């Protein structure tokens, strides 16, 4: 059984008389998890609660199997956190700052220095590591924040709006780093963002929040697989015969005027089967598109959902 990364059990957070998070219940176990939601949905509050910054008013949650109410210190040993806002000591050099953070995480001084250099090289700040953080550009500051989050080798990396304020090349670089870390299998990633594209490019699972409740959970990997089966084909030759042949394989087919065919493939059927049938019938395939729900479609549908309770 896959170990859960985040397990929410009727989690509630209340500030004064306001319920910020309401009765959240779900289990997430993906290598990379996206937290989506409009501004004020409770994404950052959820992260801050999981890190023990905000008190839990009801229920509980577990990170990597550890309870946030009773084992927060162990959790913080295993977690790396990149906050949304600028958080630095501006008159320190990057290497000194990252080393300090590593030492506070429990690394011995020499190991902390070594890891600080490695982390800065890894995020691409190797050449600028002796510069003071106050002189860094916005993109460099984001990378430095990422470096401090990974310097102690966490098992879970929590990123709060990591691409905020980045220009397209810097954003691409950040996304690539997140994908690399996710694919390294050494850690899990939780990405909190309101940018659908960032989540779509990096996450396997998505939890969508609205007004402090969970309105949708989506396993993007499964959705991607499921939506692969809807194809649009533009063919030249015996289109009708081609469609019949596809139906013979169990596909639902519709010839949509001209030479266009829409088909829903059966379970287990691959695209190569379409090519094979086309070759057998001597039909030219001019165009073949997958049509799938984008994360934007999923998100917009979720936003239309009424928020009744926080359970999945």
């Amino acid at each position, binding site marked *: 059984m896959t170990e859960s990364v985040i397990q929410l059990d009727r989690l509630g957070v209340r500030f004064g008389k306001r319920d910020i998070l309401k009765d959240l219940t779900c289990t997430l176990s993906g290598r990379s998890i996206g937290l989506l939601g409009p501004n004020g949905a409770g994404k950052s509050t959820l992260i801050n609660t999981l890190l023990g910054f905000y008190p839990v008013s009801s229920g509980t949650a577990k990170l990597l199997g550890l309870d946030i109410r009773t084992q927060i210190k162990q959790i913080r040993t295993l977690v790396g956190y990149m906050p949304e806002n600028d*958080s630095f000591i501006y008159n320190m050099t990057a290497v000194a700052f990252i080393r300090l953070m590593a030492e506070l995480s429990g690394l011995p001084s020499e190991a902390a220095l070594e890891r600080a250099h490695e982390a800065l090289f890894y995020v691409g700040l190797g050449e600028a590591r002796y510069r003071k953080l106050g002189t860094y550009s916005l993109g460099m500051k984001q990378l430095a924040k990422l470096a401090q989050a990974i310097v102690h080798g966490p098992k879970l990396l929590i990123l709060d709006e990591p691409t905020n304020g980045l220009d397209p090349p810097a954003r691409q670089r950040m996304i690539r780093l997140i994908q690399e870390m996710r694919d390294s299998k050494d850690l899990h990633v939780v990405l909190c963002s309101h940018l659908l594209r960032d989540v779509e490019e990096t996450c396997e699972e998505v939890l969508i929040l609205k007004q402090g409740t969970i309105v949708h959970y989506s396993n993007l990997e499964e959705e991607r697989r499921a939506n692969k089966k809807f194809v649009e084909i533009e063919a030249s030759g015996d289109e009708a015969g081609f469609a019949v042949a596809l139906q013979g394989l169990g596909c639902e087919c519709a010839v949509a005027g001209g030479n266009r065919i829409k088909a829903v493939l059966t379970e287990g059927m691959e695209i190569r089967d379409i090519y094979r049938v086309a070759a057998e019938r001597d039909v030219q395939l001019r165009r073949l598109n997958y049509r799938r729900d984008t994360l934007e479609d999923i998100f917009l549908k979720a936003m239309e959902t009424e928020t009744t309770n926080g359970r999945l």
Partner: protein
Amino acid sequence: MAVYKRSYKGYAGAYTPEWSRFRVLTRYASRGLFKSKFLTGFFVICLFPFLVTALLIYLNHNGTVLAMLKFGKNVINIDNAFFSRYLQTQIGFAFLLTAFVGPGLISPDLGNNALVLYFCRPFSRTEYVAGKLLVLVKLLSYITWVPGLILFAIESSLSGWSWMISNLYIAVAIVLSSLMMIAVLSLLALALSAWVKWKPVAGALVLGVLFLGTGFGAAVNGIMRTSEGFLFSIPTLIEIVTHALFRQAPLTDLSPLQAFVALLLIAGGCLYLLSRKIKAYEVVR
């Protein structure tokens, strides 16, 4: 891992004991302090009274030099009042040093939103305050009880074992008075540093609380014809307790116990202020 192997890798090495991590903050903060030439110079000046006092103690026991200067033997009475005066001088320097150093300890972390980065690690608020507090404790110790005890040891070595035994309470008074003063001043400086993000203003505020409080207290005493006004004056409160520990005559009608309780309350208030401000995030209700 060599730097050219740029791939993510977890950490599998050893960890430092949890209890020792607060000293990391102390080490980093102390390292930055003496980059300031002004502070380094001032710290050296703070040690002048120690050198002068050590010289006086030595001369007091050196008959040849005293004869050359046409003084009799043991011209200075080295007793509790002597050490008390020395410590009061050092406490004055300690006020100024605290005002220079204290505000730079927490306000930059708050101003740069750095607290969240400390507390997302296995590092508690208590450890954070302890780490910052230790910077001031070490610095102020170097100019108060450490040199005070050295002076006591010098005098003991020159006057003999019996003097040391009969005046042992002076050594205890030096340590207790200094530690009490250090605790109150450090907490006050940290609390003000936590609430005022601008370093120069926080420094001015530390001095303001110390010296304007004294003025306000004197005004209260004058108008109300009472001694309770001293409760507003941290330097006077420290002096009252110090006098009692050195077994000197009381300075005011305010008892040492009252002064000590007032100092305890001030320290408690500072801890409360720190607990309100030292957080990863403010909760907006």
